[in-house]
């Protein structure tokens, strides 16, 4: 052996999956709204839903490099599935999530055959097209979806048979947060798995992936299906906690918002998207309070500011700062 100490490969990889203090602090902090800002629990539940949706986009964009401008298609599919299920008499929330995940996942799997064949600009056009297509389809199928008026008559049964949705959002936030955390654990395992490594390989150099014998299309189909399921679950939670579904769940605005949140927070880090969702949703809430008509002006300014100052998003900037601070300390 040489004098240089090199971490034993397996231990090194093992260490990468260890929970860091910052992570534990983050998840503990997600409980603060219950005590500190009980008036904002409904907003907090919206943020948790957005966080789950961003997580889904980060898996395909941040890890596999698949750009999407139509990710609301899967969110909306989940929302309508859960909404319709409840309207037709089955309001049990957890099984509703499962069905929504399956339907959104099936739709994701079907579309993934087109998605896997393209990259970059054509992909943006295709995903945009899928999003618009589905929204128009939902609009014209008003007998099913309620069309422009939205889906009425949703009633969500108590969660696990005990916790009723309340006006203040206690149950809604606890429910959304619990599902977000459970899925986050799954996503965290995924990015540290051999498959997660393969996704990073595709993002870095898909040509070389083929030259090491990787079935890149199959990998992309798998992750796209998983992401569609997660997006569907996020949509389903929205439908269940608000007990309404409008066409807006499929809208371009939603697809654009989720992309903005991810870029704002930083792609390919899981936590980046969550941070982006928090900052974006809180900023939107505050700005729209200040100036109901022009709040998108401030959102635009925030976005440009962040991208110019910290190109890797807020979390990218944050980790750069901590690294510099550590380097400064002898």
């Amino acid at each position, binding site marked *: 052996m040489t004098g240089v100490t090199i971490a034993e490969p397996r231990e090194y990889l093992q260490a990468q*999956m260890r929970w860091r203090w910052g992570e534990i602090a983050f998840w503990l902090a997600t409980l603060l709204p219950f005590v500190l800002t009980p008036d904002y629990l409904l907003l907090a539940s919206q943020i948790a839903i957005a966080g789950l949706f961003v997580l889904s986009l980060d898996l395909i964009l941040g890890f596999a490099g698949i750009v999407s401008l139509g990710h609301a298609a899967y969110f909306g599919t989940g929302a309508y599935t859960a909404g319709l299920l409840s309207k037709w008499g089955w309001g049990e929330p957890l099984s509703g999530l499962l069905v929504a995940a399956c339907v959104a996942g099936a739709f994701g799997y079907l579309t993934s055959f087109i998605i896997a064949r393209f990259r970059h600009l054509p992909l943006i056009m295709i995903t945009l097209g899928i999003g618009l297509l589905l929204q128009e389809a939902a609009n014209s199928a008003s007998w099913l979806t309620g069309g422009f008026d939205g889906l009425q008559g949703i009633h969500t049964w108590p969660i696990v048979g005990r916790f009723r949705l309340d006006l203040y959002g206690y149950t809604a936030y606890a429910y959304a947060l619990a599902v977000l955390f459970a899925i986050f654990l799954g996503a965290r395992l995924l990015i*540290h798995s*051999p498959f997660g*490594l393969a996704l*990073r390989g595709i993002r870095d150099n898909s040509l070389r992936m*083929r030259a*090491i*014998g990787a079935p*890149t299309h199959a990998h992309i189909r798998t992750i796209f299906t998983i992401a569609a399921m997660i997006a569907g679950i996020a949509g389903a939670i929205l439908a269940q906690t608000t007990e309404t579904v409008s066409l807006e769940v499929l809208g371009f605005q939603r697809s654009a918002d989720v992309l903005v949140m991810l870029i704002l927070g930083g792609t390919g880090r899981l936590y980046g998207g969550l941070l982006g969702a928090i900052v974006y949703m809180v900023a939107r809430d505050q700005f729209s309070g200040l100036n109901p008509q022009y709040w998108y002006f401030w959102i635009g300014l925030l976005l440009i500011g962040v991208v110019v100052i910290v190109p890797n998003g807020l979390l990218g900037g944050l980790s750069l700062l901590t690294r510099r601070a550590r380097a400064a300390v002898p």
Partner: protein
Amino acid sequence: MNASALAVRGISKRFGSLVVAADIDLAMPLGARYALIGPNGAGKTTLINLMTGMLRPDAGQIVLGGEDITTLAPEQRVRRGLARTYQINSLFPHLTVLESVALAVCERRRVAQTFWRRLAAYREEIDEASQILGALMLDAVCHRPARELAYGQQRLLEIALALASRPKVLLLDEPAAGVPRDESKELFAAIGELSHDITVLFIEHDMELVFRFAARVIVMVGGSILVEGTPAEIASDPQVRAVYLGNRERG
């Protein structure tokens, strides 16, 4: 000719009016060491692209270990044991050296679809990756991202990635391109030590290295094979001297 590891039969390819491969025939026996030489634009890289499926031939057949692979996609050919490296580095810049090679091993062992188990649990795969890195003297930098490596080390990683797919036939496109001369000798020494179960074809411009490491030499000119023979035969071939070796400005 069932004994050949890789055979090319009557391969042709043209881009518009430009013929880049004209009726090429070639059969490499198991464990052979071939050098592919020829002036720039002779179609050497094109031939590798045709063999590996990056390009589809207009006519002809490519046979790997007795199986016709002409219509297979590149990744399917890799799975059957045909690997290549690139003249210009084509690595995973943000993956560490260990991750890159572990990825290639996982793909070969078909565990790269597993998303419900952490990578660190794959002992055999990681050990195999470390072993390959050790053999190529890359173990000291195994936790560095590929983009931070010295150029010569990146060239070695190119080979490590190809080896991780456990090739029967390995095609090296100018493995020492851009590497200083003394380092390129080390690099070729590593290539020379490869198991003789692997059939190797390499493109190289340095005649000293060609004559030292190749048992047979193929000379390509203008999209076709001019002559094939032992280094001694090639060195004394008047045709080769005229079109290639005689051209002293390019070494």
